[in-house]
């Protein structure tokens, strides 16, 4: 609520994070798994003097080590960049709590980069044992970075009792926070998924090349098959994980959300099938694997990993940090304050300040320091030219003027200007200005949009993915206001609405205008002329007042 809101039109902000994050999860899990598989395979090759395996690892280390390393670097930065612009409040909280965990992870990643490059470039220039050592350094540092980051990810769903966001400053204890209740099962799950991706990728590469004899291929296949064995632990680890998660978060999987339930089932079935195949056919029956089968298994593993990540993210709703920070960045502990005090007015005040400032002629940097004093870092762009009353006829009707009497450049501009004198408009305290806006429908809608931006826009764009317009089509303001009253119980994965009854009223009104079908219920000038009996647009209280 404190920061400007950014979102990608039609796509939303959260989807930007999700798309980068999912690619990163694939690459990072793969990098960890491939690193481990590589190190194990190279050690095995050294012990048994198996040159075929060594040759395979050498031929493919660009794909196995270097590419994931590069992809991981770029998408990792991508996550940083996207979370900080989409959810700055939560990012800021996590950074303050886990700065040192990220710093540890950064150290490990530095070693990972250097060892990865050395590994790739020194196949032919150093002794096999030394090379194998570097391979292990890469594998261990990659795995340990997962060990650290896993703690931060699980903290978001099970922060535990050591975290209290209602105190000033927050109460927090670093190590129990990192090794929080869901930590261990999640680490096991992630390690299994990493190993699976690494081994399956190796399986694809083995079978994609004609360089190896069938016997060599079988040896490598057996090795990859063994790396798939830990998959048998996936189900017990998942059960353990869910056991640790808050019961409410589990309700999505048990019917609360069909999509999540299905994805969860898919992930489970996917991993189980891979485990079954590798155990029965590769390990017990010692079958060879064709390229097609290997590819199919790899794709299945990628989809299952993606699905489980989606489920993990989804289970956190309506929070970003369970029981502490809602998806829109509002703190749960703030709720009473927001309901009772001026805090709720903050985005409104901010927007009002901007709305006033937007009309000032720009003459270089804002000269007056007080202008931004309210909250220097928390201003939000807002387009006050909301399309709902761009119809000059409607404006004129509301003002009791004719269209010709409207100043031309003001047609469609915000209505506040018609009711508040210029002087008042520029000198008022933004909050007074914001409240003056309430005197008119358009002003209400403007306030409504400000509230919408602060509380809803993070998850619902107007059009596009998870958009609000289709969700509220044909809803009356009363229905909207009622559902806002108990938003959290209306849909479990939404945060409650924060604000006074007036704010709720305005938000409902704004959402109602999104329908774009005003003329279905409201009269127009033509209707008036024809005496059609519709709801007059000027009647302010034509819908049930809220309790």
């Amino acid at each position: 609520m404190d920061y400007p809101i950014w979102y990608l039109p039609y796509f939303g902000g959260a989807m930007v994070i999700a798309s980068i994050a999912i690619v990163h999860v694939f690459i990072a899990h793969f990098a960890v798994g491939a690193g481990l598989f590589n190190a194990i395979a190279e050690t095995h090759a050294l012990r048994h003097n198996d040159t075929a395996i060594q040759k395979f690892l050498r031929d493919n280390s660009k794909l196995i080590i270097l590419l994931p390393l590069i992809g991981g670097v770029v998408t990792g930065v991508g996550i940083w960049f996207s979370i900080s612009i989409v959810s700055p409040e939560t990012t800021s909280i996590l950074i303050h709590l886990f700065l040192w965990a990220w710093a540890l992870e950064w150290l490990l990643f530095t070693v990972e980069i250097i060892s990865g490059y050395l590994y790739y470039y020194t196949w032919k220039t150093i002794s096999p044992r030394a090379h194998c050592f570097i391979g292990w350094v890469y594998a261990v540092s990659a795995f340990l970075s997962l060990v650290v980051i896993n703690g931060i990810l699980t903290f978001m769903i099970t922060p535990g009792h050591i975290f209290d966001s209602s105190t000033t400053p927050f109460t927090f204890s670093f190590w129990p926070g990192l090794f929080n209740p869901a930590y261990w099962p999640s680490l096991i799950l992630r390690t299994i998924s990493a190993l699976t991706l690494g081994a399956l990728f190796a399986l694809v590469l083995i079978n994609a090349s004609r360089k190896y004899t069938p016997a060599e291929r079988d040896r490598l296949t057996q090795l990859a098959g063994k790396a798939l064995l830990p998959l048998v632990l996936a189900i017990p680890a998942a059960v353990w994980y869910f056991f640790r998660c808050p019961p409410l978060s589990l309700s999505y999987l048990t019917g609360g959300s069909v999509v999540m339930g299905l994805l969860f089932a898919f992930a489970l079935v996917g991993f189980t099938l891979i485990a079954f195949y590798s155990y029965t056919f590769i390990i017990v029956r010692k079958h060879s694997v064709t390229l097609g089968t290997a590819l199919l298994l790899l794709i299945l593993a990628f989809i299952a990993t993606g699905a489980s990540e989606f489920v993990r993210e989804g289970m956190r709703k309506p929070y970003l940090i369970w029981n502490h920070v809602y998806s829109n960045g509002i703190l749960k502990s703030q709720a009473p304050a927001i309901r009772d005090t001026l805090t709720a007015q903050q985005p409104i005040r901010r927007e009002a300040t901007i709305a006033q400032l937007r009309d000032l002629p720009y003459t270089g940097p804002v000269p007056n320091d007080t202008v931004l004093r309210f909250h220097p870092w928390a201003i939000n762009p807002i387009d006050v030219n909301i399309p709902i009353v761009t119809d000059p006829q409607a404006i004129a009707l509301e003002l009791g003027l004719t269209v010709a009497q409207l100043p031309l450049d003001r047609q469609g501009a915000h209505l506040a200007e018609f009711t508040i004198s210029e002087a008042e408009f520029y000198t008022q305290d933004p909050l007074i200005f914001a409240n003056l806006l309430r005197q008119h429908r358009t002003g209400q809608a403007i306030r409504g949009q400000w509230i919408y931006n602060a509380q809803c826009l993070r998850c619902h764009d107007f059009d596009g993915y998870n958009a609000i317009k289709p969700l509220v089509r044909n809803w009356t303001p009363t229905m909207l206001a009622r559902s806002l009253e108990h938003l959290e119980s209306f849909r479990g994965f939404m945060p409650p609405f924060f604000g006074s009854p007036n704010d709720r009223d305005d938000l409902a009104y704004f959402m109602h205008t999104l329908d774009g079908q005003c003329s279905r219920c409201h009269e127009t000038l033509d209707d008036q002329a024809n005496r059609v009996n519709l709801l007059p647009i000027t009647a302010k209280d034509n819908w049930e007042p809220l309790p």
Partner: protein
Amino acid sequence: MIAAAAAPHIPAYQHLALPAPAWLLVTLSTITFWIHLIFVSAVVGISCILLLRCLLLRNRSEIDRQINSRALRSLPLCISLAINFGVAPLLFTQCLYGPWFYTASIFIAPFWLAVLALLLIGFISTYLARLKQSLIGFICTLLMPLAFIAILYIMTNNSVLTIQPEHWIEFHRHTSALHVPDPIVGPRLLHNLAIIITLGGLAWAWLSRSKPAPDSQLTQTNINRHATRIGLQYFFLGLPLQIAFTIWYLQTLPKPLQSQLLHTSNSISIIWYASLFLIGLALLTGIVAAFKAAGRFSLAITTILTALSLAGNLIVRQHIRTYYLSRDIAGNLDIYNPNSTTGWQVQNHNSAIIAFAILAVICLITIIVMLKLVRSRPAQS
């Protein structure tokens, strides 16, 4: 957490304690940022030099081809390290200056995210540029420096917007703007570029020293001399530009800040002058290095002096940020003053800091061991 007095309605979730004293965060941030810029210089410098050489050198001799190709091959590792050492200051900066930093990056969000695409373009280009004598190879040689300079432009604007909330309002008006309309942006940008060319030249001198191919007539001494001479050309080009742009940049800074840097004998002005002195000294040792181009010693001294001068520059840069954010309009931030009326607090995560120190030592030792292995072990099969 900040400026509670100036803005009494800051929500509770800003009441986050710093997990370490500000001085430690600033120090770590400056050190890692310093290394970031050294690698950034290598990346931007080498890719620019490669492009210029591609455009200017028509008939490339064998030695030119060898050192070009060696320099090009050094880029992926340099990029990875530049990015990695960008992450660390990113962490510390977010922790110290989150409210300003986040807001600035939100205002330039499309460009901020474009950094990722530019990084990818740059990264991929370093591989495709190896396709010699092909159109793709040429296009990628062109794209590399362009992508990196575009990132530099975005980063510089973000840094300026972070410390100048007076421009935020302007960004509300133009939601997809990037360029901050302030006189310090131009000189700061050119100053950054000049530093990068200076250091980039030195990076070239080191990183383009290839081993002579087994069947080649070239000796290692020839190659080293050639590589150093080319690198130093750019060093000598960048250095006067750096001094000129620094002076210009200084003039665009607010007057009180200028006088702090120039006229008073406080620690920051001493660092400022020391940094200028070091770069002057580097100029002299650079001349020696140009005469002894095959050797390493004077080149190493020049590199160390230039890098130390950059470190001085970065301490001054931090001071400039502190000054800008201490203004009324920026919320009177004082990160060194915990528990003052600002509500800024520190709660050290001591055991985690110790873990960080221990792991840093372990990682350093591991890296040294690996490098030793790589240097000393002979090839076996």
